[in-house]
């Protein structure tokens, strides 16, 4: 990271945490989340730097941990070493909803299975923390995965490198926006940790070339923008 050069040493996050990503949550373009997993398995859920809230210079109108009339993440309480009483979350459990001044609403999700330890009440009084320091003081929530699931909970997430790939491909396609394109990606034979490694990435204009049926077996995924 650029910080490393200035300080000559890795930052707190680089020293203790592994970064994991989940992109386009619930199919919504660029709604990327970042999960910082500490070596002791605790996960800190944050916005990825590519999240629309951070990209478009938006201002925050409101943040709410009240995810339904019956459930508020703010009321989460844990006690004792075993953190009794904390809400148990699945990967797609909503953590909070953030509304920007232009009226757009974003839902932030848990991304990992585990017990909710705390949410960040500071961002309610100082929403700018979320925009200025999204990966530290502007964190969303802290989750403790089950001990036996501490390795498996990140299986469906992207590594930093994979995330950077996704981001650069997005950039490559930016100029092609407003058109319908077929993108075919060819997988490697092996799925590593539940994530495919892509050999090739072809962006095809549908009218120019039709995808042959025979190609479907090796070209496993079709996306369009």
């Amino acid at each position: 990271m650029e910080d490393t050069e200035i300080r000559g040493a890795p930052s707190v996050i680089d020293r203790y945490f592994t970064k994991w990503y989940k992109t386009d949550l619930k199919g919504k373009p660029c709604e990327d989340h970042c999960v910082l997993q500490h070596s002791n398995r605790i996960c800190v859920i944050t916005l990825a730097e590519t999240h629309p809230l951070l990209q478009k210079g938006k201002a925050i109108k409101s943040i709410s941990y009240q995810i339904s009339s019956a459930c508020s993440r703010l009321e989460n309480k844990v006690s004792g070493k075993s953190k009794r009483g904390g809400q148990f979350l699945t990967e797609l459990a909503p953590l909070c909803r953030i509304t920007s001044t232009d009226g757009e609403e974003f839902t932030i999700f848990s991304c990992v299975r585990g017990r909710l330890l705390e949410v960040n009440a500071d961002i309610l009084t100082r929403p700018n923390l979320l925009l200025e320091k999204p990966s530290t003081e502007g964190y969303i929530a802290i989750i403790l995965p089950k001990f036996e699931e501490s390795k498996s909970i990140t299986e469906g997430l992207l590594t930093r490198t994979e995330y950077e790939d996704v981001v650069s491909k997005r950039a490559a396609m930016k100029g092609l926006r407003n058109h319908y394109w077929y993108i075919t990606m060819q997988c490697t034979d092996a799925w590593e940790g539940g994530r495919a490694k892509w050999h090739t990435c072809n962006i095809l204009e549908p009218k120019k070339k039709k995808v042959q049926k025979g190609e479907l077996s090796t070209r496993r995924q079709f996306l369009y923008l």
Partner: protein
Amino acid sequence: MLPLKEKDRPIVRALLDAGCCARCILRFCCVSLQSAYRQNYEDLTCELQSFADTRETSISGDSAEKEQQDVPPCKKIRLDIEKGGDEDGKDVKESAEKTESNICVVCLGVLQHFCDKDFAKKIAETVMAEKYEFHSLVLSVSLPAQLSVREHSAWLLVKKEMREKTMCLGKDDVIQVKEAYKWILHSLVSQELGVPALAKSLFEVSVGFKHPETDGDCHFLAATCSGCFKPAKNKQSVFTRMAVVKALEKITEESFRRKFSCPPKRPTTLCALQEIQCLHVPVFVAGRYNKFSRTLPQTPWVIDGERRMESSVEELITAPLLSAFQAEGFNFSSSGREDVDVRTLGNGRPFAVELLNPHKAQFSTEEVHQLQETINKSSSKIRVRDLQIVTREAVGHMKEGEEEKTKSYCALIWTQRPIEENDIEFLNDIKDLNIAQKTPLRVLHRRPLAVRQRVIHTMSAQYRDSHHFCLQLRTQAGTYIKEFVHGDFGRTRPNLCDLMKTETDILELDVESVDVDWPPVIPEPESQKGRSSLPEHQHKDTPPSQEDIQCHPLGSLF
């Protein structure tokens, strides 16, 4: 002459009839004259027999008549005893038919057959083979739990006799089997080993007995008092001695008599020796340690069953102690602890080691100092001072008031924003800063989530360069310094980032002093002054220098 009174006569008779041994009878008659138990068993039996056979009217009168009556039963018993130990099946059977069995129904032979000079010799040999260094000893006896059931049964018998004679005696007045056993054995074993037997001896020899034949005796208690018998870890059977005694306190006399024979049934086998074990009370050794390495954990570091990092402070200190004291194990404790990447300088951190079952426990001041030298020569990563043998009670001083004590640290700080010398001066003026620390993320997986109020008493900053300065802190014990500096996701407030109005991070941390005035300082002997086993650079108790930063690859520090 036995200290028995007229009132004891019916009790003696009833117990003799029930198959009780002479020493158990003395116990039930509450005889507390120790020498009575040490008498030769056969003589004692004869004497009791004659006491029982004497007609009440003649007790104070004609002794000639008494003696005449004595002879035949006494001979009979002596014969039985001799044959009891005989391997010849026919003879034993014959005698068993006559008197059923001569093994005591209450003590199952413990007070008959394990109380002589031969058995004391056997104990002494076992002890000598263990090669302990000891100056006195105390015996402890572990008896099968069913002995309590049998004792209770015999006690009910005694009570019945007393009720008829309107006497009153409490069960507590009865001499315990263990007590009587020790009265006899202590002097015998003491003679064999040539050291006194003292109740408060540091060296314990425990003798354990078992009697499989009657293990079932206790089982009926489970039905009447199930609450007393809960399965416990590391116990093979739920029928522990404690549980059985508790159940016997609860059970009614009627209920007991219905389920267990009173007097107890005669056994056909003798108790067997289960084990003779030696145990020396732990020795506590205390001192202070310095840790000069940023890659040395305090205790062995194991993750997922795999060893991380070679060695540890604990291992470096305890290895020479274990071998010198020939101890079987240890418990290491200290006044707080430092992270693997933190050095502990200054006078060091107080620690104590409990050495379990040491075979050698006496060391002179010089020998202890020599041990300290051995530890210090074994590694340059640590250094020990003030090493001394202390009492268990004194170790408490190390932990008491630990929270109130202050600790001094020195930290190397990085700032994101370039700084001038005067940018950090304001830190020197901050006094008794109250901070609120949520349980740091790095320990949150094993500690409860809480917000703790801590005080940073003073800070003193020394400028290094445009992105670095040294910060000395004196804080309340229990303050998380690393989190105070980097803020821990804003979970410590205020933090140094807040104060400096820029991102700050901690690159190195040293503990400068742990202000616990225990253990007492041991002055270095004259001959040792100025002599040291450590390379010069290891003595540097100063804040980390720029060289330190360069020679420690930071990636491995945190």
